[in-house]
């Protein structure tokens, strides 16, 4: 029983983290119907920002989070401005390969500069601490990441549904042409979606670096998990992404406990089954 509770709690925590990583992907897809393969690399850049600030400037990794977010925002905006606007004119294949090229470029640029070594953050307010709730003890950094995830989801949900900016974003996603006639600067909305997507995943990367290995290739694993999450939740659905993240976390946590070599197989299988059996996802329209 104790093990089961521990596993489920751990699964939910990891699920929040996966959901956090998927948030930006879901947002970008929702607004402009394009899948960003470089999303995991945005996260990786956020992880490196945190790692560098904590190990070279000797600051607490938490201090780096705004910087990770800001760099993610810039990365998103720049990618949109210089790449995505161009590939949107081409066929679907070109769109796929365009973000794919961006993924390779970012990943190996980081590898070229910092080398392929696996790094970890060794000190910080949260690193290595545990929080105990009764007999369940949890990694403090994971709990904080999960909390931040809930906060960000809440914020994005509020922004999309309650603010003027969110209304403009939704209008752009529903019908770009009509939105433009209504005086919405759709180009700016798209760029903003990329910026916000990049910022959330940058912060997620910064938090993830507290307890996960920092390597240039870490993005691939997380982008696949994020694809599975977003597909399961329904492409473009914010609440869907959150719930699907938790489901994926539980699959990975429980599957990993019983068949640890194959834990990612379960996630890929979940993606495959979702898109084949219910292409709009559990919560998509």
């Amino acid at each position, binding site marked *: 029983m104790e093990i089961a509770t521990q596993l489920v709690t751990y699964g939910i925590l990891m699920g929040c983290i996966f959901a956090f990583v998927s948030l930006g992907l879901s947002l970008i897809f929702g607004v402009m119907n394009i899948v960003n393969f470089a999303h995991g690399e945005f996260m990786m850049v956020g992880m490196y920002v945190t790692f560098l600030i904590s190990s070279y400037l000797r600051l607490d990794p938490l201090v780096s989070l705004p910087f990770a977010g800001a760099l993610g925002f810039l990365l998103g905006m720049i990618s949109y401005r210089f790449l995505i606007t161009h590939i949107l004119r081409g066929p679907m*294949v*070109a769109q796929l*390969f365009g973000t794919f*090229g961006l993924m*390779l470029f970012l990943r*190996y640029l980081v590898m070229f500069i910092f080398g392929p070594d696996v790094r970890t953050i060794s000190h910080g307010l949260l690193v290595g601490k545990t929080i105990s709730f009764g007999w369940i003890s949890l990694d403090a950094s994971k709990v904080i990441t999960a909390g931040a995830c809930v906060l960000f989801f809440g914020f994005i949900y509020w922004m999309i549904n309650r603010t003027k900016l969110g209304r403009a974003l939704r209008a752009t996603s529903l019908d770009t042409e009509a939105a433009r006639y209504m005086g919405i600067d759709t180009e700016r909305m798209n760029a903003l979606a990329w910026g916000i997507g990049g910022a959330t995943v940058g912060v997620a990367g910064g938090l993830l670096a507290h307890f996960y290995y920092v390597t240039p290739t870490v993005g691939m694993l997380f982008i696949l998990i994020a694809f599975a999450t977003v597909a399961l939740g329904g492409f473009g659905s914010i609440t869907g992404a959150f719930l699907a993240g938790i489901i994926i976390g539980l699959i990975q946590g429980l599957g990993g406990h019983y068949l640890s070599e194959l834990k990612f*197989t379960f996630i890929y299988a979940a993606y495959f089954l979702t898109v084949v059996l219910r292409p709009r996802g559990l919560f998509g329209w």
Partner: protein
Amino acid sequence: MGQVLRDIFSFGDRPFIERIVLFVFIAVGLIFPWLVESAYGRAVMIKFLLIALFGLGWNLIGGYGGQVDLGQAKNVGFGAYATALMMLHWHTPFWLTVPVGMFFATAESFAVAYPMFRLRGHYFAIATLCVALVWKELFVFWDWTGGARGVEISIRPAPNFTYMQFGEVGYHYFIFGLFMAQFLFMNWFRKSKLGYQLQAVRDNEDAATSLGTNVTGTKVKAYCITAALGAVGGSFMTVYYLYIDPDLVMPLDLSILIAMTVMVGGAGSIWGPMIGAAALIPLDMYLGAWLAGTGHYGIDFIIYGFIIMIIAAYEPKGIWGIIQKMSRRA
């Protein structure tokens, strides 16, 4: 029969120039071991032909079919493992293992094809990626296939045609022969009935349906043939490297490299894979040798990524598209 022969050797766009290019290519391929003496140069040529061979196979589904498949490495893996395991356990001669590898790759592709082709675009691409990764994890997990340790093939002392082991020159002609066979097959295929149906499906599914083409059936057939073609190259990798593991024959990077080669060269063109491999592989091997001592990794992929972005943004038809535009202007 006569028509088939004519189709194999005829080209569409600029028949005369293309035939001359093909002739020069064959000539260079045949005398290459005399032109280049260094082992490294020959290794580059073999790698070029191997990746171009994979590109030819992928071009069938990715270029003529327009379906972005990011999992071709799994088929390479099936071919490689069929050859390696049959040689290891039963000492089967090479040419008997090739059809077995092709069979397994085709059967697996057929099994996943119907659910897979309910998907389109991004969904399909990610699904192929997932399936390939699942197979890789299973091969790492499974003991009978050697797991993560891989499979080693015992080295024969003398050149051996049963197990296809030779020196570099032998391997060069071996892969060159495989490449030419697939090249001519593809040149015939694109003018076959299925080839035309496939291109019609790529260009407009509704129109193809209304003309009586079974869209899903066509895609599934193309997907299975692609799988079989990929497995052949995998079998070659086993006897060339004499050692395989999931990281060598089924990695995601290989799937990406194959698809990228074709995209850079020109998807849906018979020359695309060749041009793409000629652009990427020597660059890759040269940079790899140059940077090996400096401790910096990955500059090859930085350049790949950059080229891919430029091509996707400005010329989705790849280098072949540029050549076509220039020749039209001239």
